[in-house]
């Protein structure tokens, strides 16, 4: 499931880029019990960063209270249609994922 790429939509209007991201991740809190009554271990994204032309345009620290398949939206100035942005997440097991998208 985390092998699924992030869905990133970045659109530029009047010099501002709106970025909407949907990530694939279980975001397990560590408090849920499975069908056998066993606690499912915590497994969640801890940090997120978005970069454009080598600059970080947003960074975040998350805990397991962020919903499964996390959604993120933000806006930054300067990106142009055709530029690329990168989104990276790192989770509490050390797994990491980066996806890139082109600004529309």
């Amino acid at each position, binding site marked *: 499931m985390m092998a699924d790429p992030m869905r990133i939509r970045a659109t530029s209007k009047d010099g501002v880029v709106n970025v909407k991201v949907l990530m694939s991740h279980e975001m397990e*809190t560590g408090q*849920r019990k499975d069908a056998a009554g066993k606690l499912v271990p915590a497994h969640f994204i801890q940090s997120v960063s978005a970069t454009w032309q080598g600059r970080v345009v*947003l960074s*975040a620290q998350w805990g397991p209270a*962020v919903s*499964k398949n996390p*959604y*993120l939206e933000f806006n930054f100035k300067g990106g142009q249609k055709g530029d690329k942005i990168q989104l990276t997440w790192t989770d509490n097991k050390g797994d990491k994922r980066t996806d890139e998208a082109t600004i529309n």
Partner: protein
Amino acid sequence: MNQTRRDVLKAGGGAGLLALLAAVGFGTPGEAVAADWNKAAFEVKTVPEAFKVLGAGTPANSADILMKAPDIAENGAVVPIGIESKIPGTESIAVLIEKNPNPFAAAFDIPAGTETTVATRVKMGETSNVYALVKANGKYFVAKKEIKVTLGGCGG
């Protein structure tokens, strides 16, 4: 002397060794710790403790923090939260959910050039106040909104 180590040890307080290990990429067996992840804040059990650990003290209420979230969340597992800060010099926005087992849910660092508005979706275990904590020019401000939850979303 290694600058990073010295800073980490100074900042780490009682958690000095763990912070040092985290900074160089090691965690406890079976668990990797992302460098700089604020474990202390994510593990406190109350909003006042979270404010304290974050260095926010007693943040001033601000009418310039707009929270866009439903009055009633049909599904506590997926509650949309939008926060816009109109406070000049806003550097970061954090989300805290009062009645969750661990209230500190997320924090966003906003560099210059990025608008001070973020949106995400969070889990709420039950009806609760949700706080938006803003750091602006080194000072802390807060707004809150009660969100009613009909179906809790933290576990089970």
